[in-house]
C-alpha cells in the first residue's frame, strides 16, 4: 500500500464509523479542494453513494463560480444539498464590506450561520436531487454528527483536533478536556445536546490532497488553476478577504510540482487569508466559537 492508499483507507473507515453511529449526520462542503476530496472519499466509502446531506454555508460573498460549480456537482452526483445563510446580518448590512471588522464578519456570516443551520433553528434551503428542485425547510432536525474536512497541517489549533471531537450545546470546543482516542476506536457515544465534529482528513497534508485529486481525476473547481491570467486561488473563501496568488500552475500535476519544488515550497497555504492575521491566535478564538 502506498501512502495515498493508506490515507484513503483510514478516511473511508472513519466515514463508515460516522455513518454507523450518527442517525443525524451531515457533511460540510465548502466547495474547496479538501471538502471536495472528502465528498469523493464518501463515494469511495459508500460505493458511489452519498448517504448524508451536504451543508454549504453561503455567506453571499462567495466567488460566483463556486455557487455554479456547487449546483452542477449536486445535480451530477445526486447530492442532498443543504444551504444556510445569515439573512438577518446581510439585511442589516452587518458585513466586512459594510464596514464591520473581518473577524466579526466571519463570526456572523460563517460561524453563526453554520451553528443555526446545523441545529435547525434557522431555515435551510434544500436541493432535492431526484426532482432537481429547491425547497425551504423550517424547524429541521439538528445534525448531531458533522463531518468536516480540516487537516492537522493547516494551522496551529487544527493540529490539536481529535478525529471524533465533541462540541457542547454552545458549539464550543475545549482542546484541553478531550477524551482519549485509542487505535481505531473513536468516541462514538454522546450525551444528548452535544454534537460531534468528525475529521477524516486530519492526517492529510495539502500535498496529499493534490496527489489524490491527480490520482483519482476528481473534478475540482477551476479557481484553483491558472486559467491564463497568471493567477490562481490556493485557498478559497469570500472574495473580499481571499486573494489569488501568482502562479502558472494549470492543473493538479503542476500544483504538485509547485508545492514540492517550486515557489510554494515551505509557504503556508492560508497565507492569502486575511482573517488569520488579525492578532495572535485568532483562528483559535474563532474555532472555539464553532468556526471551521
Amino acid at each position, binding site marked *: 500500500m502506498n*501512502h495515498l492508499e493508506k490515507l484513503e*483507507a483510514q478516511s473511508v473507515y472513519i466515514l463508515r464509523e460516522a*455513518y454507523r453511529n450518527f442517525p443525524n449526520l451531515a457533511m460540510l462542503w465548502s466547495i474547496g479542494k479538501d471538502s471536495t476530496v472528502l465528498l469523493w472519499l464518501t463515494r469511495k466509502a459508500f*460505493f458511489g453513494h452519498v448517504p448524508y446531506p451536504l451543508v454549504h454555508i453561503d455567506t453571499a460573498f462567495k466567488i460566483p463560480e463556486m455557487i455554479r460549480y456547487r449546483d452542477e456537482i449536486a445535480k451530477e452526483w445526486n447530492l442532498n444539498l443543504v444551504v444556510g445563510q445569515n439573512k438577518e446580518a446581510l439585511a442589516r448590512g452587518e458585513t466586512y464590506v459594510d464596514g464591520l471588522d473581518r473577524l466579526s464578519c466571519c463570526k456572523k456570516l460563517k460561524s453563526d450561520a453554520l451553528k443555526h443551520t446545523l441545529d435547525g433553528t434557522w431555515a435551510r434551503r434544500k436541493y432535492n436531487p431526484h426532482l432537481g428542485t429547491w425547497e425551504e425547510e423550517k424547524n429541521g432536525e439538528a445534525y448531531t454528527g458533522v463531518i468536516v474536512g480540516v487537516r492537522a497541517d493547516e494551522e496551529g489549533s487544527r493540529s490539536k483536533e481529535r478525529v471524533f471531537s465533541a462540541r457542547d450545546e454552545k458549539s464550543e470546543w475545549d482542546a484541553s478536556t478531550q477524551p482519549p*482516542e485509542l487505535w481505531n476506536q473513536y468516541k462514538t457515544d454522546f450525551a444528548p445536546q452535544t454534537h460531534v465534529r468528525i475529521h477524516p482528513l486530519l492526517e492529510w497534508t495539502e500535498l496529499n490532497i493534490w496527489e489524490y485529486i491527480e490520482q*483519482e481525476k476528481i473534478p475540482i473547481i477551476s479557481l484553483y488553476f491558472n486559467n491564463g491570467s497568471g493567477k490562481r486561488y490556493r485557498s478559497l473563501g469570500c472574495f473580499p478577504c481571499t486573494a489569488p496568488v501568482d502562479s502558472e500552475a494549470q492543473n493538479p500535476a503542476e500544483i504538485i510540482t509547485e508545492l514540492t519544488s517550486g515557489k510554494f515550497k515551505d509557504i503556508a497555504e492560508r497565507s492569502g487569508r486575511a482573517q488569520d492575521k488579525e492578532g495572535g491566535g485568532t483562528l483559535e478564538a474563532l474555532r472555539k466559537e464553532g468556526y471551521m
Partner: protein
Amino acid sequence: MERMNIVITGHVDHGKSTLIGRLLADTHSLPQGKLESVKAMCAKNARPFEYAFLLDALADEQKQGITIDSARVFFNSKQREYIIIDAPGHIEFLKNMISGASRAEAALLLIDAKEGVAENSKRHGMLLSMLGIKQVAIVVNKMDLVDFSEASFETLKAEYTEYLATLGVKSDVFIPIAARDGVNLIAHSELTPWYKGPTVLEILDNFKVTQNPEIADFRMPLQDVYKFTADGDDRRIYAGTITNGEISIGDDVVFYPSLKHSTVASIESFNTSVKSNAKVAEAIGFTLQTQIYVKNGEVVAKASQKPPHVAHRFEANIFWLGAKALQKNKAYKIKIGSAKSTVYLESIKRVIDGDTLDKANEPEVARHEAASVVFRSHDALAMEYFSENQKLGRFVIVDGYDIAGGGIVTDIFEESGQDILPEESFEDELFMLLRKHFPHRFN
C-alpha cells in the same frame, strides 16, 4: 515518500518540545519565516527564545507553559516523512499521551539526565509496552547539566534498563543528548566523544515502518452492511477494513460469532478497475452469493482457515483513564474490532502502579492505574490474543459516554461445542425486518 508515526514521550519538563523544535529547525522542516517570527515574538515580549515555542501553537498553551494535547508535527529526513506526535508529560494529560502513542509505530522516550528516572518515565515505559510499540529508543536529555559525563549516562541507563526488564520490554538503544544545543540530534558531538551509537535522526531512520508480520489468515471486522435501495442500487454490501490476510471472489467466508456463512460473489469498489481480490489494510466491501443477515461487529474469516476465538470471558491488561474508578459488577461498554457489547469487570488479578508495581487484592482500578483483570461480556465476542493479532486483541472500555480505558487480551476462556449452524430462514427474515425498522438498535 514513506511515512511513519512516531511519538516522543517522557516526564514533564524533560524537554520533549525542545527536542522536536530543534529537530524541525536543524532539518529545515519549518515553514519559511516561522523560526524568525517566533524569535521576533520572543524579543517583543522580552522572553528568551526557546525551541519549544515552535510547537506551542495554541494561544492558551503558551500561557500555561505546558503541552496540552498531542500535536501532530510533520517532519522530513532524507529517507522518509515523519509525523511526530508530541505527547504531553503532565499526569493529567495521560489520556492525551495515550491517544498520541496509540497511533505511533515507534517511540522516543525522554529522560532528564540530572533528574533521572521519574514517575512518568516509568509509567510511559509501561504504557508503550502495553500499546504494543516495540521500537523504543531512550533519549537521555540535558546531558550538559551532568557535564556530558559517561558515568552518569551509564548509571541512568542501567537503572532504566532494569525497570524496563520488569515490564518485559527490551531496549538497548540509549542516546545521550542536549536538545537545546543540538548534541547528537542529527550529528555526533565532540562533547560526547565516548558515545559511538546512533544519533536521534539515525535511530529514527533505522526504525521499521512495518512491524512484525501478524497472522496471515483473513480477518475483517464487519463495520456495516449497506443496501442503497433508494438510489436504485440493490447490492447488499458487507463493508469493513481488512485487518489480516486477503480475500478473493469465490472464497467461502464465515461470520463469527454467528457462524453464518456464504461465498464471496464480488469485491465492490468505486472508481477503480474491477477487483477480484483485496488485501490487508484495504477498506473494502463485498457481496455474497446468498443473502445472510449478520450483525455489525462480527468478524469475517475464511472457512478454510483457522477461526478467531469466540468467548464471553477473557483476561486482559488494561490501563484506566476514567475519572471514576473501574469497578466490579457495573455495566460498561466494550468496543473491540467493530463489535460493541455490554461488559462487566469480573475480577482484578493485580494492579500495577507506575511507582511501586504490583498490588494484589485491590477492590477497583483507579485513574491512571494499569491492571491485569478478567472481563465478562454480555454477548459472545470474536477476538484474538494481542500477542498473535494486535488489531483483534485490543479494545476500549466506555464508561458513560467516554472512552475510559484501553486494554489488550492476554487470555481467552472459550466455551466448547460450537459448530457451523444451518441457515435458518425464519430467524434471518425476522432479523432483516428488525434491522430495517430499528436500524440504530443494530449498531
